[in-house]
């Protein structure tokens, strides 16, 4: 066994290393400084620098289509793009964290440490093509997150959210692992690249392998909150501090979906029509459950959580398409593009909520937005843009995301799924409109908690601009992603 680790491996994995090292900087400073927390701003800058460098390195080396560490990690287009989305949305989450009342400032370096390592876990998760490495990445990502959730200033709901997330997440991990063991048993490999060659035949011949695949798929379904495995999502999203919710809805979701995409891309579903059927039903169920449940919510964060479930359903359509299509680059691009879209608009929407929250116990209801447009016209406009984008209305990014996604579904003949998605979009419009109604059409005096939330404001406005501008010129971006994915 002659296995050596070369410079290439180090270069490619450098984003992860950088993240880990940067995560240690504030902590080390704190320890050296007699355990006194330095200014959060410095920590923030360090973290953002780390994320920035990681992103730069990822762009530099990421999309080179190389496997490193003996086929453990694959740095291809998906890694690059999903990684970038995860890093950027994580950065946005950190920015929100910096200005949210639920953030324990006395432990800001610890939170940042956990967050950066969570991102490192995501990068592993995204790039891993070995199921066990996938698992390690998943756990690194999730365990940090559980701790972050539990560390909120708010004591009641965040703890509940953390324990729920933890217990259910652990079940999902166990299920995932059990599936991996079956796959390992049936094919003697857990490497997706190798699996790809045998998957389609094995799945027909070997029920154990089929079970393994289902367990793995359901493990992922849990992570990306596909109904009926979504039940944790609304509770955890609501209970967690808003910046962390943003983090979950964007970075975590992107990374999980990216890893899920790798499973789907093995074409393993094609072997079992029943599996494809049931996955389609899951997609339908997810969209419907997410949207109808969001209809009756009053808590805005919970509404957005259910909407996140619904969006998972839309993305799941794309995922199924990837699993079915012979040339999956287009469908995969549609999924990645939608992930990007969803990440940006979620960040923006949660960002606004985060800015409105006055204390760690404060939560924003739909009616609680009344009069926001008068007090903060720019932010209200941004929020409107996010909501419109989430509803999938042109000419903003969300529309194009849906266009590409449903386009992919239609081209694979999954017209009824697309139809269902569209029906759901109609339901969704209702609850996306309600905050707009509140902000613009009802009298009230909702305002942001503090007018000096510069970082969040910049971030939110940047997201809005991104959604509008990239929305109008989404073609080149799509082509770019597709080129690097194929």
């Amino acid at each position, binding site marked *: 066994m002659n296995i050596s680790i070369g410079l290439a491996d180090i270069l490619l994995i450098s984003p992860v290393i950088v993240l880990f090292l940067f995560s240690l900087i504030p902590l080390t400073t704190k320890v050296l400084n007699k355990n006194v927390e330095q200014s959060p701003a410095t920590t923030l800058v360090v973290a953002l620098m780390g994320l920035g460098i990681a992103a730069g390195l990822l762009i530099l080396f990421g999309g080179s289509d190389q496997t490193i560490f003996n086929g453990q990690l694959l740095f291809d287009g998906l890694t690059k793009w999903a990684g970038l989305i995860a890093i950027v949305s994580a950065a946005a989450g950190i920015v929100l964290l910096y200005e949210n009342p639920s953030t324990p400032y006395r432990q800001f370096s610890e939170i940042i440490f956990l967050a950066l390592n969570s991102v490192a876990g995501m990068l592993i998760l995204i790039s891993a093509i070995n199921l066990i490495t996938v*698992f390690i990445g998943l756990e690194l990502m999730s365990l940090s997150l559980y701790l972050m959730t539990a560390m909120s200033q708010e004591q*009641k709901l965040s703890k*509940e959210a953390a324990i729920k997330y933890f217990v259910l997440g*652990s079940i999902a991990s*166990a299920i995932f*692992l059990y599936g991996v063991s079956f796959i*390992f048993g049936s094919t003697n490999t857990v490497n997706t690249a190798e699996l790809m060659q045998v998957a389609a035949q094995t799945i027909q011949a070997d029920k154990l392998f089929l079970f393994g695949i289902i367990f793995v798929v359901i493990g992922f379904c849990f992570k990306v909150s596909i109904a009926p495995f979504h039940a944790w999502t609304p509770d955890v999203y609501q209970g967690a501090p808003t910046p962390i919710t943003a983090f979950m809805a964007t970075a975590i979701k992107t990374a999980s979906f990216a890893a899920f995409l790798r499973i789907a891309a093995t074409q393993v579903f094609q072997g079992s029509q029943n599996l494809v059927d049931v996955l389609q039903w899951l997609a339908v169920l997810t969209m419907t459950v997410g949207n109808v449940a969001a209809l009756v919510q009053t808590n805005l964060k919970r509404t957005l959580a259910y909407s996140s479930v619904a969006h998972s359903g839309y993305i799941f359509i794309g995922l199924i398409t990837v699993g079915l299509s012979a040339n999956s680059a287009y469908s995969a691009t549609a999924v990645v593009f939608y992930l990007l879209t969803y990440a940006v608009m979620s960040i923006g929407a949660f960002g606004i909520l985060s800015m409105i929250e006055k204390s760690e116990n404060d939560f924003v209801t739909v009616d609680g937005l009344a009069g926001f447009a008068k007090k903060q016209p720019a932010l209200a406009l941004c929020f409107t843009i996010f909501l419109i984008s989430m509803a999938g209305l042109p000419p903003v990014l969300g529309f194009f995301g849906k266009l590409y996604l449903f386009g992919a579904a239609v081209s694979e003949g999954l017209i009824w799924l697309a139809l269902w998605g569209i029906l759901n979009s109609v339901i969704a419009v209702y609850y996306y409109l309600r905050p707009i109604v509140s902000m613009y059409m009802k009298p009230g005096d909702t305002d942001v908690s503090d007018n000096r939330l510069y970082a969040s404001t910049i971030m939110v406005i940047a997201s809005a601009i991104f959604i509008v501008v990239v929305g109008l010129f989404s073609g080149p971006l799509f082509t770019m992603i597709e080129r690097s994915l194929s």
Partner: protein
Amino acid sequence: MLETSMFSEIGLNHYLVLSALLFTIGMAGILLRRNLIVVLMSIELMLNAVNISFVAFSKYNMNSEGQVMVFFVMTIAAAEAAVGLAIIVSIFKRFKEVNIRFFEHLKG
């Protein structure tokens, strides 16, 4: 013949069935027990079941990679236990309770 072979010749399936039973027992524990610590223990049961499965397959496939996985799983299980217990402890500190019944504020 079948009887004897099933009892006397221990094959892969025996281990797998054992693992499956342990897994479902763990699942049952999570579903039924209200004490968070016991729930955590049930999760450990599930992970152990997975480990049995891995090792059995490892032997069947004569692939030591299975054992590596078990090693990883064990480590992570330990880490999970640590995190879980830490969260439980912090919850206990706040609520003086570790019964799931008390954590139903987030709903609807």
